[in-house]
């Protein structure tokens, strides 16, 4: 019974999400709005001086987005360092807490 209910919920959610993609509202390969693409292609080289329009969008038009990505990587390293250093340190708080709990 539970499996049937979860299957029904899964099918309902998958159907509601796939409905948009499979219906004719979104045509594959033909984006409906191209004003921004045309703007980047027409002005990217003149405004940024970069031949690679993808790089121009990443580091100039969407620079703050890239700053966020770099910060995410920074925080990821902080997290890995925190977890592993705590697990490695001999006689650390982590060991003590584990020793106290039976």
């Amino acid at each position, binding site marked *: 019974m539970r499996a049937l209910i979860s299957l029904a919920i899964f099918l309902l959610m998958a159907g509601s999400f796939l409905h948009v993609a499979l219906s004719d509202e979104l045509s594959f390969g033909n984006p409906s709005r191209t004003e921004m693409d045309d703007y980047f292609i027409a002005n990217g*080289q*003149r405004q940024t001086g970069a031949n690679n329009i993808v790089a121009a969008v990443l*580091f100039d038009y969407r620079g703050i987005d890239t700053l966020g990505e*770099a910060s995410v990587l920074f925080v990821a390293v902080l997290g890995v*360092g925190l977890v592993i250093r705590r697990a*490695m340190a001999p006689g650390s708080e982590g*060991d003590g807490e*584990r020793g106290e709990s039976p």
Partner: protein
Amino acid sequence: MKKIVRTAARLLYPFAFIYGAYIVLHGHLTPGGGFQGGAVIATGFALMLAAHGPGELSGIFKRAALNICEVAGLLIFVLAGFGGLTHGRAFLFNWLANAGGLFGHSVAHGPNPGDLNTGGLVPLLNIAVGLEVLGALSLIIYYMMTFANHIEEGGPDDAA
């Protein structure tokens, strides 16, 4: 690890570094950029760390050097962004483009052979992100390999 692996790694890692540096420095002209090139350079670090073990290397393979790389990358990015404010424009405004100085050459519209000294902030931020990514990925590998070696030697419970 075995001597053959160590020797091969020592022969191969400069090529990974050079190819990664090419991808980073030409990011504003050809496909690629800071993230991709930094990841390629980090494979060189991973090769050396896997062959030698994280504790036995010196120089640029030390954890302190990787830390400096990572922090310097993010700092260059943010400081270059604040440079836009000093020119009366928004944060991360491309204040170096078409200015004539560093990375300041103008580029013609349409296909052209490409000039390394163009792009303004784009190549600068590519280099910053490349430093950041190579430091971050190498540090994660470094931490995990140190932890794996530690477990092999008896585990965290027996260390005390």
